[in-house]
């Protein structure tokens, strides 16, 4: 191969969920390359296989055929240098906020003392200082999702996977978190795969937007977003931004699945 080796390299990925009733072709012939430090958004109607793609990359779902290569090695089980944020914050109600953030490193067998200070610093960075000993059910939705971002970041992963993390939040909180995520990426240059329903969110955050369609789940287009970084929220009022949104929305209108946002 002559092209430079990419950080995430997906070739000919097929994923079929087999069940007694029917086989579901969740992903069909997926080709995707993600370079280091890229921020990739995946956009598509619900049920088109976005979460499945994320789980295949994360080593959480076995692939049916093709290859998924992360940093040169085939993904067989969840790699260490990866953090995941799920759609619902899935915090553990029986642990306080600090212990929730420490959960992943605890499972990996790390010493608590090695990470406790880091966890506190992260929480502080996300505006959660003073909440360390509160429990998840005492926090608002936005705060809970911030905690789950902290949990994913604690072990300083190179690759950050987010599966519609802000879908359940109100518009204001969503804007806040979009800004924080943009700032985080600007500072750390982690490689990010971000799944979303919202066209505006995808354009605002990403260097590239991957558009998927369903039945079977496949990639329709990969669009480079050439807006300068760092981006402020008012970039959304520029004509360039509008053109990207327009273009992407066209995708879904022709597909017959009009997306708002």
């Amino acid at each position: 191969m002559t092209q430079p080796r990419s950080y995430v390299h997906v070739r000919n990925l097929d994923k079929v969920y087999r069940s007694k009733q029917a086989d579901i072709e969740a992903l069909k012939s997926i080709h995707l390359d993600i370079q280091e430090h890229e921020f990739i958004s995946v956009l598509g109607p619900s049920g088109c296989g976005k979460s499945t793609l994320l789980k295949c990359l994360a080593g959480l779902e076995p692939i049916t055929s093709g290859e998924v290569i992360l940093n040169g090695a085939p993904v067989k089980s969840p790699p260490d240098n990866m953090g995941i944020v799920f759609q619902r914050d899935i915090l553990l109600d029986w642990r306080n906020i600090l212990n929730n953030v420490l959960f992943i490193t605890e499972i990996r067998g790390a010493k608590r003392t090695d990470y406790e200070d880091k966890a506190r610093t992260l929480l502080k960075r996300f505006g959660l200082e003073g909440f360390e000993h509160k429990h998840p059910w005492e926090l608002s939705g936005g705060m809970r999702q911030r905690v789950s971002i902290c949990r994913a970041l604690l072990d300083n992963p190179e690759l950050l996977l987010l599966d519609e993390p802000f879908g359940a939040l109100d518009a204001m909180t969503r804007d806040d978190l979009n800004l924080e995520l943009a700032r985080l990426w600007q500072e750390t240059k982690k490689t990010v795969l971000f799944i979303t329903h919202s066209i505006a969110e995808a354009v605002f955050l990403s260097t590239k937007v991957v558009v998927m369609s369903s039945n079977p789940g496949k990639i329709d287009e990969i669009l480079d977003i050439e807006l300068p970084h760092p981006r402020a929220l008012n970039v959304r009022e520029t004509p360039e931004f509008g053109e990207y949104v327009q273009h992407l929305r066209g995708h879904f209108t022709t597909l017959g699945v009009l997306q708002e946002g």
Partner: protein
Amino acid sequence: MGWLEKNNRLLSSMIVLIVCVILWEIACHILQVRPFILPAPSAILIEMIEDPNYFIKHAGYTLMTTLAGFALAVVLGVLMAVGIVHSVFLDRTLYTLLVALNSVPKVALAPLFVIWMGTGSEPKIAIALMIAIFSIVIDTVLGLRSVDKDMIDMARSARATTMQVLFKIRFPCALASMFAGMKVGISFALIGAIVGEFVAGETGLGHVILLSQGMFDTARAFVAIVILGIMGTILFYTVEAVERILLPWHTSQRVNTQ
């Protein structure tokens, strides 16, 4: 507001209870009901005060067999549930069998336990165990299974072992459902203990009721029944109190939604 409402509820049910007891007392006197048919509450109270040690001894015995049966049901039931959740074989055999047997009136088996285990406390504990275990197993299996798949994926993303998933995710998640099963189970354990005492033996409140029946000493039977009622209520609320302490997130949500 929740506190006031809850205590209002307690208060109003106490008032209804007291009114009923007073009506009962008055009815017994006005209608001249013969004491061996229905003793007046005052007669029941006198019966209880006359020989408290007798009742304490028998109540203690019933309490011990109930608690022993219940504790064994919890330990065995949870172990079985863990097995069922982790093994397709146990799920197909044991669990299917348990669910089918759940609808059988298990009380009918009580006499057999006396044949197998004699007339000591063993058959009573065994009957209490048998009756209590069903709801505990079924609700624990339900709880262990209904864990959010994303939550398990989150743990798996750190390559959690099956044991880590079980103890750090599944069990805490299942606790709410387990407690629902245990609250049913504790009441059933008490029923099991009484049935055991009905069938054989010389001790326990069940035995007291049977003995009083033979001697038409209805007041004494009523004392035993009242103690059983109080015991059952206290046992139930004890389990609920433990739940409240262990699962503040669950109980706090329940108060909010009520």
